[in-house]
């Protein structure tokens, strides 16, 4: 329970600091406090003054952050400048789409990466090892955006790209980890005593590697979210990656910072969850 509370406090502190950083970026960005509406020739001087006044109400950076936090606590993330819609509504509409893509990508990447790593280590065939390592190495050298473009050309489902982005990292790490576990003395003894390959893997190799593999789970969530930007833009998937790109092209910092904070929160929760589960596994094994 104490560990859980410590993790929750860490997430909160990082989010508060990240929020402050984000608010600073928005507040100090060139063009803050100005509005295109000021160019409307129908507005008189008083209206323009009122518009300016509404922007300067936030005052200093500290006051601005305080307002930002207060609004955040009330579930108000502001309004998108480019899309003229509340950020919370945009998030509610688009976040499930990204979660679906990221979930599918993670499932594909992990199952492919882990399965091939197990085959490469357990088969002990140099050919399979070389072939799988080359495939993972080649995918590691292709930007996510290019993979997405290739999928568009091939008219294949774009969501699969996220799996191919995650796969090489999982494969490399898992392969090295399993190979190291497979060469431990107790595993060699088990093999020498005639234990079957499947039982060796299930009872002697995987339990040793599991906590470290779990640590990678959190990192892979961050990877998949980052790759969702080019994938959703190029494959035309209406998720938050596409929204972030639109916000960047329109210099909509309010929206961008909110999106970054939401993704950061999800990443931090995933990291903490994998850390907590990994620790309890280690303690259980000890």
């Amino acid at each position, binding site marked *: 329970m104490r560990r859980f509370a410590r993790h929750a406090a860490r997430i909160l502190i990082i989010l508060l600091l990240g929020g402050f950083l984000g608010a600073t970026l928005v507040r100090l960005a060139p063009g803050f406090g100005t509005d295109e509406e000021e160019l409307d020739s129908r507005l008189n001087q008083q209206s323009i003054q009122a518009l300016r006044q509404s922007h300067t109400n936030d005052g200093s950076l500290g006051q601005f952050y305080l307002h930002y936090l207060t609004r955040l606590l009330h579930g108000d993330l502001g309004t998108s400048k480019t899309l003229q819609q509340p950020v919370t509504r945009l998030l509610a509409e688009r976040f499930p789409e990204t979660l679906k893509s990221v979930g599918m990508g993670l499932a594909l990447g992990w199952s492919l990466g882990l399965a091939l790593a197990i085959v490469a280590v357990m088969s002990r065939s140099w050919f399979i090892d070389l072939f799988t390592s080359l495939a993972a190495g080649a995918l590691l050298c292709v930007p996510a955006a290019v993979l997405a*473009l290739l999928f568009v050309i091939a008219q294949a489902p774009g969501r699969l790209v996220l799996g191919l982005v995650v796969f090489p990292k999982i494969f490399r790490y898992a392969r090295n980890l399993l190979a190291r576990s497979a060469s431990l003395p107790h595993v060699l003894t088990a093999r020498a005593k005639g234990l079957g390959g499947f039982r060796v893997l299930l009872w002697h190799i995987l339990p040793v590697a599991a906590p470290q593999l779990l640590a990678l789970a959190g990192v892979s969530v961050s990877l998949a979210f980052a790759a969702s*930007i080019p994938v959703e833009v190029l494959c035309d998937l209406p998720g938050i990656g596409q929204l972030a790109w639109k916000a*960047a*092209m329109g210099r909509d910092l309010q929206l961008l910072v909110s999106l970054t904070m939401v993704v*950061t929160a999800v990443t931090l929760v995933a990291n903490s969850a994998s850390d907590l589960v990994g620790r309890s596994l280690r303690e259980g094994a000890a």
Partner: protein
Amino acid sequence: MKWARVAAIVFLVVVSAACLLADFVAPAPYSHQFRDVPDAAPSRQHLLGTDDLGRDRFSRLLYGTRVSLLLAPAAALLSSLLAALIGGTAGFVGGWLQRSVMAATDLFLSLPWLFLLITVRALLPLNVAPITSVLITFALLGCLGWAAAARVICADARTLGSSDFMLLARASGSSGFRLLWRHLLPNLKPILFAQFWISIPVFILTEANLGILGLGVAEPLPSWGSLLRELESFSAFSGHPWQFVPLILFIVVVSCFHLALQKQELSA
């Protein structure tokens, strides 16, 4: 695998030399338009054909590779120097400074890389001159990519700080800057070099992603990002397979960096 590493380094040297000599090797300037032959197939005049605007693809590939291959190492150097300064100092001084720096790196590493990058990129003007866009893109990569390396360097500096030779140097009267400059930094060199090498392919890939999204180097200056963006116009029916040459070169070059850096990782 020594031969593979040597072949990778030789290939990188040849590609870098060809790109550095692009002014002499390229048949035309990168922005020159051959208006009578737009979207042409490869020929003796245009080895990789021309793009939609009639620009020679081979020349653009040479200049684009030059931009990415020169500036990615420059960005990697910047991020490694920042990591050395921040991580090295924190590890050397220890105490609250180390804890603060580690908290800052935690914060940086928690922010998804591409989200952070496009947020900061959006802060800066998007409609800028091509040269400015190149500098902005790679300077951003250099300035934002220090966190992971700083963590490694800080841990290494901490270990070195309590090693026997450092204790001996302290006992001999060395302190402060001299201890840092004469004893700590030379021993951090291998890890710094490894971090530098690891960063190069990461930055090349990130620039390509940004370029394809239109947030990287501005036209008409080519970079790998803008060259790979041309694949958007590829159609299986038009059948222009030479459009894939930049992608193949890209994959081979990044693979060569991975092959070459294995040695650096091991030596670190």
